[in-house]
């Protein structure tokens, strides 16, 4: 719904910009109902820029070209910064805290607080930047260091993943040397396969876990 959502978000500005010009308003609303697929946290940047352009009654071909040019890069940047770095880093923080014995509400609360400070900060900053520079987003965006931020978040996430692995496979879950080594080795092999083959191993892990669970249950029922 990002197309219609874009138009929905712009309605207050469009109503003010077009005033009594109903035909112009409908045309503008229709224009902004077209596809606009971008990252939800960086889309406000484009929204701010378009709001400023519409408020100043910029030519509609300029606005359409700007939207078409900016949606892809904002989407790619957001995917890399948020979905592939910030989100896993903050979730891993929560899982590490939980695995280390911190109270669940504290682990969950830490995630929600830290994640949403970044999330809302990005939305607000992006919107304000768009309002300020309008369609001249290129240089400010390049100088904002978002790619570097994404790299830092990815490094933090990798560190936290390293912390989680021993907490998950070695502590409190198993007792007794044989079980420790057994699950540790199985887990390490599993993780190695995942690191090598990527997200496709997730589906395989789900299928295998379901199969193992039903087989174990079957054994239990048959006893």
């Amino acid at each position, binding site marked *: 719904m990002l197309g219609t959502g874009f138009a*929905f978000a712009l309605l207050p500005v469009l109503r003010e910009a077009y005033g009594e010009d109903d035909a112009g308003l409908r045309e503008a609303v229709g224009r902004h*109902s077209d596809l606009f697929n971008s990252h939800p946290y960086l889309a406000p940047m484009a929204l701010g820029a378009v709001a400023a352009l519409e408020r100043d009654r910029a030519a509609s071909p300029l606005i359409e070209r700007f939207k078409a040019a900016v949606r892809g890069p904002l989407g790619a940047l957001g995917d890399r910064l948020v979905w592939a770095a910030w989100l896993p880093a903050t979730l891993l923080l929560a899982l590490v805290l939980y695995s280390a014995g911190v109270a669940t509400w504290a682990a969950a609360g830490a995630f929600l607080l830290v994640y949403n400070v970044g999330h809302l900060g990005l939305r607000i900053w992006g919107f304000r930047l768009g309002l300020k520079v309008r369609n001249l987003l290129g240089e400010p965006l390049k100088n904002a260091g978002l790619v570097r931020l994404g790299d830092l978040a990815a490094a933090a996430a990798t560190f936290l*993943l390293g912390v989680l692995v021993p907490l998950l496979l070695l502590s409190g879950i198993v007792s007794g040397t044989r079980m420790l080594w057994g699950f540790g080795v199985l887990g390490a092999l599993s993780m190695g396969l995942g*690191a090598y083959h990527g997200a496709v191993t997730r589906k395989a892990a789900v299928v295998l876990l379901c199969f193992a669970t039903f087989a174990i249950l079957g054994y239990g029922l048959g006893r």
Partner: protein
Amino acid sequence: MGADLAIVVLLGGIVALDGTSFGQFMISRPFIAGTLTGAAVGSPMEGAAVGAVLEMFQLCVLPVGGARFPEAGPAAVVATLAAGAAPGAGGLALACVLGLVWAEVCGASVIYLRLLNGRMVPDPAAGAVTPQKVMRAQFAALVLDFLRGALLVGVGAVVGILVTPRFALAWPLNEQWTLGLLAAGAAAPLGALLRTLGGLGRWRVAFTYGLVVGCIAVIVR
């Protein structure tokens, strides 16, 4: 139980909305949704445990573009209720499996929702697009997403409450073995996440430091 189900169904709708349509404050993440559900229905330990397992499976899933992916938030709500209905190792294992399967069902429903949304969106080529049409389409889509989440959680919760207690008692493994099995399964998606982050080729120092800190934490605990 009726009141619990009503709360859970409402939570399911909210979690579904948060996933994509409104806010994205990440209460739709399995760990958060499981924790919230557990707190709401009096099964906080089960909710956190189930949520953590499902979260580890979901970490490597990137919600990019129009990709189809499992929707683990409502599934975590269902799994928490199922685990609460049958506390113990068997309940945990079966609830996690139910959650993983239900996440695929919820993910498939998103595709149908998108198709339905496409029909509701006013088409500029077909006629004038008024602000009223845009607002109607927007609110209708939000309501549909909420109802989708609520319905899926309602149905899943009934399945979980009926099925899990019947079979949990037959589960032959103790808690430690069960957690070991789940951890070994969750390790594969964690490895996939490592690849997504850039892999050991890029971040081996950070990962190694993390391993050292994690081992120290295990020893100190």
